[in-house]
């Protein structure tokens, strides 16, 4: 391996900024400046390139590792749709790391696994893949991902230890946190007068005021989770009686009231399709901006972290087995763990990226970040969140979801 190794002092960081300024200037000469500026100022949503780009000027204070390993060639990433700042998986990465990036999208962990394993364990050409934590066990077992060379990811020290060493990968040999989030719900206070706080409230509203106007996440564990959390049952339960009870309630009682199974309801909320939606926090946060975009009043909507218990999911960066350019994959993962990059990504997708000293980072790098309460949670709140365990119950849960779907459609 002949990659160049160097520590980035503020000087070289300025180089990166200059390049970005150059790109913008180049655009300006073409007479695009007016348009770009108009977009930049009118769009308060932080999920645009321009808004995110503006904050790179600052450098976080404190003790951070900012190693950049230059690489070469093409880097292929397989990730979730609309989940990464386009600059960080595009132009900026290319200029910083000397690689050409290609990004493809999958819709669920199972899609990812099906795609990788259908290839019979032969390389599918992807370098970086982004599974959710619990799926890593299965992917390691099937030989779909490879071990990190941790010497190439020195910036891992920037990650908060609380988000390292998770159950699925105790020593972070295969994965490192991309970002984490939780499940809650989002509702229209003009349509649902009762104040909702718990999953019990949520389920009651689904069958009451929001009947026929509510959506649940289209993933079996989350769908069933709403019932388990509401009733104080461990959502990873393998107990047959609990699963039977869940099926009885979800299929026979809840399903007829459900309008859609929708994992990303934000756009459809803005279209006016639902008045109550189970949602992941980042998507609920997007819903505020979308509703504003569509000319609605976001103030009428309320986000609730589901209680008494709820999910904590963590999506992770992994390197696919047989990755054609594993060296570049390491270089990129290491690069995204630089706090400035990580926060730029956070501003795009609205999920906590697991960096140390998050509060300080946000004050210094992204003081204008809005709706932070849907990104950051108190220690007590985090205590109520539990990660999923992939166990024997998954077939049953998928079966329950399928039955609920057919019942809802009847």
């Amino acid at each position, binding site marked *: 391996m002949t990659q160049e190794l160097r520590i980035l002092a503020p000087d070289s960081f300025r180089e990166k900024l200059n390049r970005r300024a150059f790109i913008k200037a180049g655009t300006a000469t073409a007479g695009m400046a007016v348009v770009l500026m108009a977009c930049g100022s009118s769009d308060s949503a932080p999920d645009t390139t321009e808004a995110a780009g503006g904050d790179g000027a600052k450098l976080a204070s404190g003790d951070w590792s900012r190693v950049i390993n230059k690489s070469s060639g093409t880097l292929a990433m397989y990730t979730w*749709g609309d989940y990464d700042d386009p600059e960080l998986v595009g132009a900026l990465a290319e200029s910083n790391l000397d690689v050409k990036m290609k990004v493809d999208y999958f819709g669920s962990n199972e899609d990812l696994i099906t795609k990788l394993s259908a290839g019979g364990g032969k390389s599918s050409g992807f370098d970086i893949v982004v599974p959710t934590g619990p799926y890593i066990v299965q992917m390691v077992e099937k030989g779909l991902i490879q071990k990190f060379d941790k010497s190439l990811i020195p910036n891992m020290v920037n990650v908060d230890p609380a988000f390292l060493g998770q159950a699925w990968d105790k020593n972070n040999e295969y994965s490192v946190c991309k970002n984490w989030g939780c499940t809650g719900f989002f509702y229209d206070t003009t349509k649902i007068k009762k104040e909702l706080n718990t999953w019990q409230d949520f389920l009651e509203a689904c069958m009451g005021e929001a009947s026929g106007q509510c959506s649940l996440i289209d993933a079996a564990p989350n769908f069933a989770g709403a019932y388990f959390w509401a009733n104080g049952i461990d959502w990873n339960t393998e107990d047959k009686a609990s699963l039977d009870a869940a099926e009885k309630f979800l299929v026979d009682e809840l399903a007829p009231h459900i309008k859609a199974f929708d994992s990303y309801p934000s756009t459809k909320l803005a279209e006016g399709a639902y008045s109550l939606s189970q949602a992941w926090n980042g998507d609920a946060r997007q819903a505020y901006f979308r509703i504003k975009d569509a000319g609605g009043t976001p103030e009428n909507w309320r986000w609730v972290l589901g209680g008494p218990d709820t999910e904590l999911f963590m999506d992770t960066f992994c390197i696919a087995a047989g990755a054609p350019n594993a060296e570049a994959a390491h270089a990129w993962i290491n690069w995204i763990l630089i706090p400035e990059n990580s926060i730029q990504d956070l501003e795009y997708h609205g999920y906590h990226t697991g960096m140390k000293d998050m509060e300080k980072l946000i004050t210094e790098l992204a003081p204008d970040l809005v709706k932070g309460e849907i990104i950051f949670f108190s220690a007590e709140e985090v205590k109520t969140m539990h990660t999923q365990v992939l166990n024997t119950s998954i077939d049953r849960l998928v079966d329950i979801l399928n039955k609920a*779907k057919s019942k809802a459609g009847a």
Partner: protein
Amino acid sequence: MDSPGIISFRRKVRGPKFALALPSIIWYGLFFVVPIAFIVVYSFGTKDGSKLIPVDLGHLSGANYANVFDETFFKVFKSTLRISAIATIACLLIGLPVAYLAAFKVAEKWKAIILALVVVPSFTSFLIRTVAWRIPLAPNGFFSQWLVDMGWIGTQGIQVLETPMAVQVAIVYNYLGFMILPLFVALDRIDVRMREASKDLGAGRIATFFGVTLPLAGPGIIAGVLLTFIPMCGDYVTATILGGAKGNMIGSMIASQFSGAQNWPLGSAMAVLMIGAVLLSMVVGAALVWLVMWIVKHPSPMTIRVKHAWHVRSVARMRAGKNSVLSFDFLPILLKAWTALVLVFLFIPIGLVVAHSFNGGSSFTIWSGQPGTKWWDELFAGSVMWSVIARFVVFVVVGIVTRIALGRTTSISKRILNWTGPVAFLLAFVVNGMMTGWYESIFDFASIGDAIRNSFIAAFGATILAVFLGGFAGVALARRPGVWTKVFMASVFLILVTPEIMDAIALATWFPRVADFPIIGYPFKNGWGPFNGGMNKLWVGQSLYASAVVTLIVRARLAGLDESLEEAAADLGATPARAFRQITLPLISSALVAGGLLSFTLCLDNAVISTLISEAGSTTFPVALIGATRSTIKPFWGVGAVMLFCVTLGALWFVTVVLRRSGSSSSEIAATLAGS
């Protein structure tokens, strides 16, 4: 007239009857029958999540089939059949007047225009058009708000999204073109004299339509019903995007077993049963049609009396001197108005896609109220865009000017003159690309530029394969019928009816095995030239359905023509190869071109198979887009779709020009397009 010479000649050249279909037989055997057989075997296994291919074949049993037979499956299957059947009938009822107008009531020039307008919408990405239906149907959307403001609907707005109604509308929309074309062709071939004779014999307009026109259009109706009903049954993209919980379809249930639950055995059992059920429902449908025809053909005293009464009335009315109830003929006007409405319907989503590609907001379906070109700027990487467009315009203008200038000088032959336009267009494309290097840099956002390019390369390669395979197989089917024909047609039918997700899984698990074969495995393992293994897989995967379609079209084209021309050529001493090249090939050339066009659009839209078999670096536009549809669709995808649309239209225009040079009339092109 069979002279002994011809008989002996035939015997000499024929060889096995299926010789010409041999490429297709090998192809389907290797890439359809064998891989699908594996999946069918899986349906007797049990799930084993720890394996790479999560199937345990240790203890085979039929338990999966027993598990499928539960309430859930039947309920969803019933609603799928209902949606498909209603949509097929709706397509027929909506499409028939349009086809009728185009076939009988307008001038030749207008025929071409109407047909072009029917076909053109299907050149925009199928996925993005389906998503676009969310825009006018949204309860908070402009259309809904307008209806509310007018006081025509309640303040809740339109409540159609996430219901079977939305799926129904969009599915009719998506397949209408596949119905209109075959109908048009069937009607267009009807000899006008038959209709005139019917009228001369005293039949009224209605009696002529039901007694003469409709029965003659029978084959077209059957073709249209097959081309819409079968793919509808397997379609799940439409339901996923628009249907919510209430518009669930069987395709998504099967897909969720394969990828969601990783339960391949159950998914494959479901797919096998679904294929059986779709075939069965088609048999039932055919039996019903046959029954109706039989009753009509073998009149009972009852039907004779009805027909007689009708005839007496018509004749009486004719004697009384009023041919129709109304003195003024409203029919053409009504037909034209209806056709105009249908065309508007077909173009609504495309207009919305174009409009929303200029959305200043961050979501494709939500109009932010602020138009902007920022998503276009991202596609064109800012400044490069305008210089590219400027150069493009210069080249095209130069082409036009050259053409006009040359037009004045009579020494240039007309043939060369006619090519000036397309050549200038091509030059503008190629040279412009080389000068600005925009093949590399212009589409430089989230790999979408690569996706557009890959879509073209994949669709183009698959189309060539499909035309080659389908062309020979079609000729063999029409000219060398035998026992093999039935077997072969059955496999073609199976290819059309197998749910895409099953094909996708079958091929995705089959390719790694094929890659280990000597020689034929090489392209899938290593790729060749600039094309990687993923691209080679896409060619194979997309060619299956497309070649089946081409086969049917070529066969239908030759079915009506006997072999006398080839025999004459043979009599005059032509070798079989020469007779094929100089007689058969020209006969089927327009079928090949039209079949190729249809294949091209089908391949360009292929999402499910391509998603599972593509590799990094061979991602096509629908593959990229289907991944994004699960989360937020940025207006950027609209920009990509518009680009794809423009380039496809350009290619189509080029082909049409070529076709017209080679002398086919518009209705001939449409005829072959529709497969009659």
